[in-house]
């Protein structure tokens, strides 16, 4: 179906997501906002509008064949009409199927239309995987750039620099090609002055990276800051934010994400990777007509793209799909499930072929041990779950308080300075402690690692008894001095990370939350694990240990405790359930640890839910006032539709348009005087019987177009919304027929309908507004914003915090 009206020449497409309307907030005046194409441009072959003198019935096909450019599109910061989008897609599909019987070309067209979804998923997977590979390799390199440089080729990071050289057993990390900054500048790496110089260079690099990141964000794409997941959740529920998933946002987010991660700030890259993947999805949608023109289909693609994003972040395709299903998507049709899985697999496979970590692993902290655990260890695991829940609730409260302060006070006026100060504090505090100096991913990797004979890190400095070692299986051993040093260093690192993340998440650089929470949990878990291990070693004759942990056996694995702690903290913050467990078990590659992970995740969710109901993303949605109708909560109050509808008792009556007795001038007056996004159409003011509903944007565009293009349409022309308009005396100007823009099936409820049902209708159908009738006559209207305000009021929150329309 060739919609000529949408062909573009030199001016911008009204349906392109990169172009933005002027954000006036509500009203749109008659001097057309620059997003709508000026209608006086030449458009060769544009069919005349089906109005004027013709009295034919306008069928649905006419509506589809000759739409005006702009009719059926949405303003920025508005909600889409899910019902309309879905029915348009069904009509389009029906037409293609009907036409496919006519000719071979049409048959091919229908086959390619069905196939286009899969091709799109393939492309999204490829692009998301490649970008993730680029981000991983660049971030790895730039993180090491703070410490030194490789003389064999400046593009190598520390690990790759030392790949080729022959290292000794005791000095496994050192090689002559890698020079720290003090070695480069001073010639030697020892001594107090060298340490101070290293410190200084570290801080300088960190500041440079973060300043560059925030300046790039501010100059080119202000939408690229933050995590992105709250806004993507809102977009997927039907909200339009033009430019949020555009090309510039994609480029800037990718670049500045690497910079932000490399600067040593306490943030991760998983949340922003979801945003990057959704940008890829949105941009690639423009290649296919089916998805470009239909907002509902596009959101299906975005759900799949979000799955691909998480899949490359964690190397967990199934976890990615479940994350998209549980956290990010609003409507998740079954067809999307299979396609999301496909996109996630393609993305993971692309990333694996780029091989950023040199060992065919997709994530730095892949775990490869398979030690068994004992049922009694569930007690410390549940303790970790409680810790995770407590920390999650604490983090959400303090982060929201800090972000609210940034939003409302003068703190928000200095974003660049804020980033500078936070980076400076983080870098200065991080350098002295070995565990905060390394990148957070490396820290998690080291904490997850089970100590073998060959590990040389401080954390694995146990007292070894070589005569009794049999092969690779090490028993529980007493902790050496290295372990004790590592313990208190880790405790300090824990405190620092707990507090600095509160101020970091939400800054004006791309920031994710998964890695810092996992780090906090991993540190807590490892501390507890080592404590339990030492307890079992020194008191192996206690009754709780004697049954299963005799001397010389390897029973406690501190690495497992770190993993469980990481899962608990992540669950406490995000309140993920199934997706968290699946992501963690895909990280470990084995089913042995599902029970501990589930126990910890469940405990942490229960504890955190007892303290505060919302996860971090929902809390940010509420903080920003996005019009997101929560699908998981039950509405349990006994109010009725008449309590919520507008107009209320003392308000002026509902603004309606009559079906055939208003002139163009009257309608224009109404549209300019009021700011509603749609108007009900009734038979007459006296009877108030409902005919349909017309949207403001469609009305404005149609009237503008009619004035310019049709003969005889003047201010006194009558507008007629019916098929058969009433006959007028011959001297009166011609009638403007606007039946094609009228929605003839608006949803109505009676005024006695309980609000539970009304909220359910809004959620399940994705409505924007719902008309309220009484005894068959139109009484009022309930919009989605009214519903949200009502829910907020019932929950004793501030109803005025719902900002958007």
């Amino acid at each position, binding site marked *: 179906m060739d919609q000529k009206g949408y062909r573009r*020449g*030199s*001016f*911008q*497409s009204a349906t*392109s997501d*990169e*172009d933005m309307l*002027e*954000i006036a907030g509500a009203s749109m005046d008659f*001097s057309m906002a*620059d997003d709508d194409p000026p209608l006086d441009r030449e458009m060769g072959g544009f069919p005349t509008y089906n109005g004027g003198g013709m009295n034919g019935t306008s069928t649905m096909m006419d509506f589809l064949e000759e739409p005006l450019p702009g009719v059926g599109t949405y303003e920025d910061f508005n909600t889409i009409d899910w019902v309309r989008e879905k029915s348009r897609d069904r009509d389009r599909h029906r037409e293609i199927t009907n036409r496919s019987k006519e000719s071979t070309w049409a048959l091919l067209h229908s086959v390619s239309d069905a196939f286009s979804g899969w091709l799109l998923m393939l492309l999204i997977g*490829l*692009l998301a995987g*490649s970008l993730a*590979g*680029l981000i991983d390799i660049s971030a790895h390199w730039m993180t090491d750039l703070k410490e030194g440089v490789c003389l064999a080729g400046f*593009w*190598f990071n520390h690990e*790759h620099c030392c*790949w*080729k050289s*022959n*290292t000794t*057993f*005791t000095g*496994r990390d050192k090689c002559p090609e890698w020079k720290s900054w003090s070695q480069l500048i001073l010639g030697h790496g020892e001594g107090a002055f060298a340490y101070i110089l290293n410190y200084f260079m570290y801080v300088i690099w960190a500041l440079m990276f973060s300043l*560059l990141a925030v*300046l*790039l964000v*501010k*100059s*080119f*794409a*202000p939408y690229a800051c933050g995590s992105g997941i709250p806004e993507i959740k809102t977009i997927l529920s039907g909200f339009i934010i033009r*430019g949020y998933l555009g*090309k*510039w946002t994609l480029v800037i987010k990718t*670049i500045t994400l690497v910079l932000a991660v490399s600067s040593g700030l306490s943030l991760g890259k998983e949340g922003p990777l979801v945003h990057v993947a959704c940008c890829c999805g949105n*941009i690639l949608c*423009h*290649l296919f007509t089916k998805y470009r023109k239909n907002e509902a289909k596009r959101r299906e693609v975005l759900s799949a793209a979000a799955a691909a994003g998480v899949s490359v972040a964690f190397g967990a395709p199934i976890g990615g799909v479940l994350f998209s299903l549980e956290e990010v998507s609003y409507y998740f049709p079954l067809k999307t499930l299979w396609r999301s899985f496909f996109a996630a697999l393609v993305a993971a496979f*692309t990333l694996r*072929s780029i*091989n950023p970590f*040199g*060992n065919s692993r997709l994530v730095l902290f892949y775990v490869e041990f398979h030690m068994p655990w004992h049922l009694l260890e569930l007690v410390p695991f549940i303790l970790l779950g409680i810790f995770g829940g407590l920390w999650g609730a604490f983090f959400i409260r303090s982060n929201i308080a800090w972000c*609210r302060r*940034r*939003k*409302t006070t003068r703190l*928000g006026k200095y974003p660049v300075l804020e980033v500078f100060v936070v980076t400076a504090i983080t870098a200065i505090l991080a350098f002295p402690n070995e565990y905060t100096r390394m990148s957070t991913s490396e820290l998690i990797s080291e904490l997850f690692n089970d100590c073998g*004979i*060959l590990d040389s890190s401080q954390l694995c400095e146990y007292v070894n008894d070589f005569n009794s*070692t049999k*092969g*690779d299986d090490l028993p529980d051993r007493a902790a050496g001095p290295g372990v004790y040093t590592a313990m208190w260093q880790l405790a300090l690192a824990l405190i620092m990370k707990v507090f600095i993340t509160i101020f970091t998440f939400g800054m*004006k650089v791309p920031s994710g939350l998964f890695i810092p929470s996992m780090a906090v949990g991993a540190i807590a878990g490892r501390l507890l694990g080592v404590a339990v291990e030492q307890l079992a070693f020194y008191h192996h004759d206690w009754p709780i240990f004697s049954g299963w942990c005799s001397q010389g056996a390897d029973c406690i694995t501190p690495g497992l405790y770190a993993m469980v702690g990481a899962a608990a903290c992540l669950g406490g913050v995000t309140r993920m359930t199934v997706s968290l467990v699946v992501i963690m078990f895909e990280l470990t590659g084995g089913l042995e640890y599902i029970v501990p992970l589930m126990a910890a995740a469940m405990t942490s969710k229960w504890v955190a839910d007892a303290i505060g109901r919302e996860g971090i993303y929902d809390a940010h949605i509420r*903080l*920003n006032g996005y019009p997101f109708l929560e699908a998981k909560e039950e509405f349990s109050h006994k109010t009725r539709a008449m309590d919520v509808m507008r107009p209320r008792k003392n308000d002026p009556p509902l603004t309606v348009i009559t079906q055939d007795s208003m002139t163009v001038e009257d309608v224009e007056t109404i549209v300019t005087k009021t700011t509603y996004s749609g108007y009900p159409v009734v038979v007459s003011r006296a009877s108030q019987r409902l005919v349909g509903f017309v949207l403001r944007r469609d009305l404005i565009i149609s009237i503008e177009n009619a004035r310019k293009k049709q003969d005889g349409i003047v201010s006194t022309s009558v507008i007629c919304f019916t098929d058969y308009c009433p006959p007028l005396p011959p001297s009166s100007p011609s009638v403007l027929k606007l039946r094609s823009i009228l929605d003839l099936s608006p949803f109505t409820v009676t005024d006695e309908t309980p609000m539970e049902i009304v909220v359910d209708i809004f959620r399940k159908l994705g409505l924007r507004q719902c008309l309220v009738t009484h005894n068959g006559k139109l009484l009022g209207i309930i919009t989605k914003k009214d519903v949200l305000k009502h829910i907020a009021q019932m929950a004793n929150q501030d109803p005025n915090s719902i900002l958007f329309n």
Partner: protein
Amino acid sequence: VLFSQAPRMFAQSSRNPASPVLLLVLLGCVLCPPAQASKSSEDIRCKCICPPYRNISGHIYNKNVSQKDCNCLHVVEPMPVPGNDVEAYCLLCECKYEERSTTTIKVIIIIYLSVVGALLLYMAFLVLVDPLIRKTDPYTQPLHNEEDSEDTRSLAAMPAPAGARANTVLERVEGAQQRWKRQVQEQRKTVFDRHKMLS
């Protein structure tokens, strides 16, 4: 210069039917280097780490062998223990096969640095050079709304080329850039000034 044209190309390409082709070409360029990276001999290795054993100190052995030969017997040379102890010694050693692609790393880092450099240059251009150019040109004042651009087109009085397009390529590019700048300004106001989004 290519990269400073790129943003304009981006802004314009949303209505250019060649934009899908452009995107696919870009995709190909991003994917080709890793896919075609040939494995040079210095990019694979088998690494065996052997801990201290009795009175022999620990040692690390690297050798360039294929994956099937990556075990203690092939890699550890010269064997520090006599024949009957080899098995016990090899049980302690851990051998891992690793491969990497230096070409991929080099290409990606260079791509990344060049994009960052281009963005920096463009940012410097926008902040420093652009206001100076705009001030001296009376026909292209800093535009604030759409009507001005139509006025400038009528004022400029360029001879319309065939095809009834009243604006040349340069002016279309200018218009696109102005529109993009306006969008970024709106975004900046929403996020940074009014704090309406993204806290």
